[in-house]
């Protein structure tokens, strides 16, 4: 056990009764900036990632991969500071990387190698003794659902299987932190769901902290405990996902487009905007924010009555990660 790893401040147990990883931040940055010429990939990021599964979300080019590379010490930041598991990646990169598993976005699997040999090789490179690496390679492939396929060459595997192999090699050495760069890329909906379930289980059952990079907001909402949202290198939001998304964020008003009077939905929208509310529209559905629940309902009722429109559905609205980005863009 590495003595330098931050120890738990408060013990905290998961569903299997085993303690989670240290209950202190796993990643901290202060004014972290990364420039490539005139391009600012990371713009003075101040963030903290807590233990558990952290979703690193943002559109392509938001700076997710750059941040992951900086966390591994593969990039020297232009300015600012960064610690991962209490270590500076630039000063203690070798020691840090022995505790971190990484599954890159790119397809990096040598086609002619058998899955079990690939996982074993990278487990050895990560520091496991040879016999232990051999045993754990098989165990890990069974864990990710490729036990029967472990002797197949990687070139004969489907995209979903190859993503699982990448996950297996990342966790085979029993790291304290796993960085997964777009692990559901190229997967169909069923495979994506299975992969997310697997990632959640790995964190919950084996107390491995996960940073999951994705541009799919619903994925992050589904599996992550915490979220870091980036937009063009800037920090949009950071914190427990339960604090950032959820119920109580306005109402959803779905109207029926009627022939008479024409344009009633537009009239309702205009009236609500004129009342100073924050209105988002998608076809005949309006998302209303900017006041308390009762006031929103009253104003919606008045606007609908004045426009002669008809209501199909009125519901409390759930705040989503998408709202974080919309707020950040304003």
């Amino acid at each position: 056990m590495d003595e330098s790893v931050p120890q738990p401040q408060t013990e905290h147990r998961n569903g299997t009764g085993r303690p989670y990883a240290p209950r202190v931040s796993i990643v901290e940055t202060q004014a972290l900036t990364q420039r490539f010429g005139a391009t600012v990939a990371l713009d003075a990021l101040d963030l903290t990632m807590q233990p558990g599964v952290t979703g690193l979300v943002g559109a392509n080019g938001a700076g997710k991969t750059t941040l992951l590379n900086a966390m591994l010490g593969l990039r020297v930041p232009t300015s600012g500071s960064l610690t991962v598991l209490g270590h500076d990646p630039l000063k203690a990169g070798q020691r840090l990387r022995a505790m971190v598993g990484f599954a890159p976005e790119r397809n990096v699997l040598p086609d002619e190698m058998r899955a079990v040999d690939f996982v074993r090789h990278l487990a050895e490179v990560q520091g496991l003794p040879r016999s232990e690496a051999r045993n754990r390679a098989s165990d890990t492939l069974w864990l990710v659902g490729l036990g029967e396929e472990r002797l197949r060459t990687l070139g004969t595997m489907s995209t979903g299987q190859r993503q699982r192999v990448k996950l297996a090699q990342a966790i085979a050495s029993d790291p304290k932190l796993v960085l997964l760069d777009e692990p559901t890329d190229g997967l169909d909906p069923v495979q994506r769901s299975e992969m997310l379930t697997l990632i959640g289980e790995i964190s919950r059952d084996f107390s491995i902290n996960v940073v999951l990079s994705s541009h799919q907001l619903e994925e992050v909402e589904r599996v992550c405990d915490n979220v870091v949202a980036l937009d063009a290198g800037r920090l949009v939001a950071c914190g427990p996902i339960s604090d950032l998304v959820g119920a109580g964020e306005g109402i959803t008003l779905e109207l029926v487009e009627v022939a008479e009077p024409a344009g009633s939905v537009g009239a309702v929208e205009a009236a609500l905007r004129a009342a100073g509310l924050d209105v988002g529209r998608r076809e005949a559905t309006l998302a209303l924010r900017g006041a308390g629940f009762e006031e929103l309902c009253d104003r919606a009722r008045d606007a609908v009555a004045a426009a002669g429109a008809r209501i199909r559905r009125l519901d409390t609205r759930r705040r989503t990660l998408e709202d974080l980005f919309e707020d950040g863009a304003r």
Partner: protein
Amino acid sequence: MSDPAVPVSPAGDADNTADTTRIIDQGYRSYDGPRTGLPGAVRSVVRYSVRHTLGLGRPARHKILPWLAVVIALVPAVVFVGLAVVLDVDLITDEILPDYHQYYGFITTALFFYCGIVVPDILVSDRRSGMLQMYLSTPLQRWNYLASKALAVALTLAVLTIGPVLFLLVAYTIEGSGPDGFIEWIKIFVRIVAAGAAISAAFTAASLAAASLTDRRAFASVGVILLLWGSGFVTLALVEAADMSANIYAFDLGGISDEFKNRIYGVEGIDPIGGGEPEPDDDFSPGAGRDSLSTTFVAVANMAWVAVGSAVVWWRYRRLALSR
């Protein structure tokens, strides 16, 4: 996830084994045991790279070229030993077959072939596939990743440069045509190892340097072949046709490493093809003129190839961006 150890009672022997037999299926679990650190990582990369270059654990088509090189280097030695046994004469003393240092003509052919076709893949494939990024996300750093790869190439080249000559030495010794006495035997042995290591180091550095400059294996192969053959032809032309200084031979990788090998064996002015002493009137014979170089110059030139090749690889990899 994991099943606990489950007692099992095999049919027919339940009474004796019910308390002791277990199915060990612990599944994925935490690991708190010792870790091998950087030395373990280097060992694993070297082992994997050696297997990769020799085509071990890969489809048959990847085994053909590396093992063809081994055959080219080794088969003549086997034939010589066979002749020594069948003819029952001292082949070296009677100059019927080449001496140990003259055997390198066969090895050079295999080396050129191996370095040109097989070696570039060891660096190029990692860069193209992204495995380099995977390696550098582990305790490995750029310099020890490169050192691991260089060691893997040097070891496989040493199989070609040391193996066949060592085989000759052992076989001749057993057959009775070997060196006279233990001291002579050790001297020959040390020379074989030293010459093989020197040639292997120079060829490793030069071929990895060429392979580091491009992401296309075919271009890397052409680069290595040009470096090995081209440098020989150009320097020969400059010295022989343009009447320039013999020091130009320092730029002939194959020639200068062969000359260094000759100095290690204590012989000078030997035609690298193994044809014996150069003819005095032959103005255009390969190797003629290299014997005028001092041994220090030859040694430094050989080491310069290693140093420059290593510097090129390091320069290239320091500048290499890893992300998409």
